[in-house]
């Protein structure tokens, strides 16, 4: 956790410096005769300063705990990626972000949704060593769930809630 805290602390310091600079450059609205303490940059600057303080505390604390020694190695990264949990996480992230960011908008909504659910179920339920019957069952149930959920969600949002689907 000390290493993660070190990196988060650094990220917070960079973020807060950026916020402070942005706040400084926000208009002072002198031409509108605005009160100097009502200008738009004052509250972001205050938040930036607090985050800078917290980020610095986090970095100092993590350095004391040895968090600055990141010890990044190829072997360490490889071990991280071969953990089954992390592989599942990566696959979920790819599928969900792919569906949310690319598929919706390119394909009709019902098709994108059905396709996403089908691929998700098949990829996660397909196992090595499955016999033909098991594979068939896996694919058929994925198709069934995909069609049913995609149709239900499309109908509910489009017909019942009158949402113009993407």
């Amino acid at each position, binding site marked *: *956790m000390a290493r993660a*805290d070190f990196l*988060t602390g650094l990220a*917070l310091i960079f973020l807060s410096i950026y916020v402070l600079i*942005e706040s400084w450059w*926000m*208009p002072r*609205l002198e031409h509108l005769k*605005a*009160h*100097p*303490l*009502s*200008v*738009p940059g*004052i*509250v*972001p600057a*205050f*938040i*930036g300063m*607090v*985050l800078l303080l*917290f*980020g610095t*505390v*986090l970095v100092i604390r993590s350095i004391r705990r040895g968090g600055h020694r990141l010890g990044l190695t190829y072997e360490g990264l490889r071990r991280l990626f071969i953990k089954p*949990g992390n592989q*599942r*996480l990566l*696959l*979920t*992230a790819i*599928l*969900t*972000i792919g*569906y*949310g*960011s690319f598929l*919706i*908008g390119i394909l009709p909504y019902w098709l994108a*949704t059905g396709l*996403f*659910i089908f691929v*998700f*179920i098949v990829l*996660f*339920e397909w196992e090595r060593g499955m016999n033909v019957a098991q594979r068939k069952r896996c694919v058929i149930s994925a198709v069934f*769930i995909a069609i049913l*959920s*995609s149709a239900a*969600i499309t109908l*509910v*949002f489009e017909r*019942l*809630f*009158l*949402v113009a*689907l*993407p």
Partner: protein
Amino acid sequence: MTVLIDNLARFLSAIAGFITPLALFHIAWSTLLGIIIGALPGLTATMGIALITTLTYKLPADLAILVLICVYVGAIYGGSRTAILLNIPGTPANAATTLDGFPLAMQGLAGRAMGVATSGSVLGSFIGMFFLATIAPILGNYALKFQSFEFFWLAIFGIVISGHLTSMEDPIKGWIAGFLGLLVAMVGQEGIHAYERFTYGTTELLGGFALIPAMVGAFGFAEVLSVMQNPPVKRAEAPQDSVFPKISDVLRYWRTIIRSGLIGTVIGIIPGVGEDIGAWVSYAAARRKSKEREKFGKGSIEGLMAAETGNNAVVPGAIIPALTLAIPGSAPAAVLLAAMFIHGLRPGPLLMVESPQFVYQVVAMVFFATLAIFIYGVGLSKPLLKVLAIPRTRLMPIVFVLCAIGSYAITSRIFDIYVMIGFGIIGYILRQMKYPMAPLVLGIILGDLMDKNLRRGLVLTDGDLTPFFTRPICLVLWLITFSSIILSIDPLRHALQEIFRLAWSRTRRLFSFR
């Protein structure tokens, strides 16, 4: 006395208003859905309310809030099932329930444990509901006296206390989450001069990040990622004994029930401190006061009762500040607050002036939701177990599809789906690094309040900070806020302890010398 009778009449009229086939139908499905959401590991009350909000756009405001409150009460109760049967809290609010619920199930008393959870949850809700009906009108009238100075401190107080209590081991992470939330709220057109902050010329960011997509991301998508990363959950077995609550358990532990109900309500009122803390504090208090302390953690009925009474009492408690100050008492209450705004309701100090009846409608909604959890708790044990058997590989893609379409449906913008994904990834990373989500959400909600009131206050006093520190309510708020910060910094706390120790020993010596 007249006020009491008036309030009782308003409550009864609100109850009568919901005894219609349509309202009862909504209570029935939404409470059941809430229980199912709560029971499924990975689906939390906040996520449930955020997702269901998107299904209530077309409903009239009172029915929409009724549905959301039923989901809220149902989810907090539903999580106890998983905690008892699988040793996995269905929602974070049920973490303390696992300590005694699961050992009871292991002893073959799963049914009794469920009965205790049902009675605790029902009574906890009723205690919280009583205080919602009595405190909210008083607090609402009192809040009318609040000015910019008080609202500024209220926002900071909320962030700091919520940050501290939701991240007890490392409060700085709670505060960072809270201030990050405030920073997120800075994006968009600010409320005094209409200057566009951090928008970079994009029209989508003019109104800032929409709250519902941000919450659906932070609680929904982040949860989908976590659930898929964790090993699969084993299958639950049906209880062999009766799940009907025993009157003797209630009568025996009535003190624990009342204490836990009070603790839960108070924890609920504190901004951004949710059901999980309510359950833990109630559990710890029950253990301290118990005559059977040795049984705690090994299957204590009293411990289970305390945890379940505490977490459900938080629900009405958390609604109190949401209604009267527009400051949510917990993360699910934050979504509820956002839903109220979406439906054109205006919670806040003026609520008691503009529509005092609404507070009693909310009390009636909690009442019906509580009745529904009792009925489902007693009658639907075995069918609920079937829901727990749904594999995550089939449930999670559907949950994500709902996260995406729910975020999109509010304003029909694809951009909101990106917001949901962005907040989901940030939420997941922050959660992995032990940053609590509740202060982040509170920060997003309170950012605008803090921004406007700090600047307004400074303009009113022409830059003089004195009223921020000397007005009575401000004084209390900043003293608690700074004490919370100082007491959580080890060297400062030790120095203070040393100073007090020295001062005390010198005073004693002085008096003994005389």
